[in-house]
């Protein structure tokens, strides 16, 4: 995915979250994560992304 497409993906993710609202955003992200996990070439790639997201969450909460 090139930079331009990545920016588009960013916008579309935001729009999808706005569309489902607070009640549906967690379920949406879970579904999206599962589908993207299935697109990962291996577990290491998924683990790296998950770790980065988790680190950001822990850093923010501390």
């Amino acid at each position, binding site marked *: 995915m090139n930079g331009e497409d990545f920016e588009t993906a960013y916008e579309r993710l935001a729009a999808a979250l706005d569309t489902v609202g607070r009640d549906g955003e967690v379920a949406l992200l*879970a*579904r999206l994560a*599962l589908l993207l996990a299935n697109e990962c070439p291996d577990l290491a790639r998924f683990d790296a992304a998950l770790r980065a997201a988790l680190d950001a969450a822990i850093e923010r909460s501390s």
Partner: protein
Amino acid sequence: MLPDINETLALARLDRYPCLRCSRTSRHPERARKHPPGRVAEAAIGRRLNCSGATVQGTAHYFDYPRFGVPRAAELDGHDIRHPIVVVGAGPVGLCCALALAHHGMRVVVVDGKTSVSDGSRAICIARHSLEIFQQLGVADRFLGKALPWTHGTSFYREEPVFRLEMPHDADERFFPMYNLQQQYIELFLAEAAAAEPLIELRWGHRLLGLTASDDGVRLAIDCAHGDYMLAADWLVAADGARSQVRQALDLPLRGEAYEGRYVIVDVHLPSDYPTERRAFFDPPANPGATVLVHKQPDDIWRIDYQLGPDDDESAALAEPAIRARVAAIVAMLGERAPWSLVWWSLYKAYTLCLDDYRHGRVLFAGDAAHLVPIFGVRGLNSGLADVANLAWKLAYVGQGRAPHQLLDSYTPERRGATLDIFERAGKSTRFMTPPSRGQRLVRDAALELARHHDCVRRLLDPRQSVPYSYITSPLTSTDPVGGEAAGPCPGSALPNVRLGADDFLLDRLGPGFNLITIGAAGKAGAIAALGRHAARRGIPFNHVALKASAAAGCAAECGTRYAAPAGSAWLARPDRHVCARWTVFDSAAACRALDRAAGWRES
């Protein structure tokens, strides 16, 4: 370590038996031990005893519970007898163990405090490998004449089918991947076979009071209607179930985990033409936010397992009116219109618990006495049957002097290894069926939602049905000189079946001892005979099954892949039909070493 679970499983005292229906205890086995943890709809089932011993008559009678006589033990008449093997527990695992020991030529005494088979359907799914064990013991036909075979299942999310389970099945299999049959039939068929076996002495109504185990044997205190006596044996097999008294007497804890989900399991009499398959419902209209499992059994009996919600009170949920209301909603959801009636029900919680060691000197544990596994994936009874198939030949060979005592040291690594493998697989299934955390539930629900339209996600819904465990890391398994799966079954694996004719399969041709299977072994007759002589010197029964290369490659579609190997290849299988060694070029010296190793004569 979960002491609360062990306390839950423990008998309060060894000399008292609990009636789990009414919380009373009694020393009288007819008044207390007869009662299983399940309940019986008193208006819906035939002759049965309630807590006071009164007979209950019902309307949906479908099974005549036998009343076995209480035999008089020779020990009560002053005979000083030392038995080779005693099995405690005449459930399916204990009875199968006795039959397997007799199959290998061992005399065995089976004691059980009850005088009938277990109440309620309990374990209902018999896997193909278990049928193969029954076939080996000569009892499969009774099961095939009654059980309902099945090959597939459907999982629903709300009302929509989202996953189709297709279990491997083809023309090379003699048996279907799964059969449904109530446990009381399983026990009855095995008990009848055991009663007809001269090497087996069944002592129904003989209750274990306590035991002492030493380096050279065990002594059991037994109580029966004729009096108390001491029963002495070289070896003891504890197959006395989840509340094993033997385990309690030796003060051995189960270790592991308990899961969150609670299920009410109900037997319902409901005439229906719906085919036999496994149906799983996630968040169905009849049980919102929870799950339901449905299995068909013989005699128009249906097993319905429905999950309780986190706020459901157990005692209220187990009241008959509450169960009727839930079942009515589920039956309506299934689209069934015929009148139905309750037969039996119980409460189920999932555990992954096992002993640290399945052998304690002269005492060996099997089935639920050794391990408790979740029902999801139908591994409880099936793993117990695999336990005794593994144990019986080893115990027989040691008892007959055909193998050293060290052979029994392989029992724990092999069968506890199988248990831990089950924990891994069944744990996943259990977490999917009953998510234990908010995160687990979010991802599970996401998977279910996506499974409606995305094939790639559906594999997450696979219930991971029971499959035979491979003993690849066992000390009895020889190092594989071949490598890979391209040359037929790997060392450690259960021998796969192959159709060799219209009603002729590879497993039909195996003998009770070690079996050598060769493909196109022309010119190897001398080497094979040398292996046979080596086995004979050990006193080990040996059988050779020669498959023609052309037949092996061409008689059936799967044959070429299951035993795809160059002409001259050979597999040596143990008496429990697991491969202990294989070669693409048969070598009698290597085969003799492999046989010695598999029989415990050689260090790994």
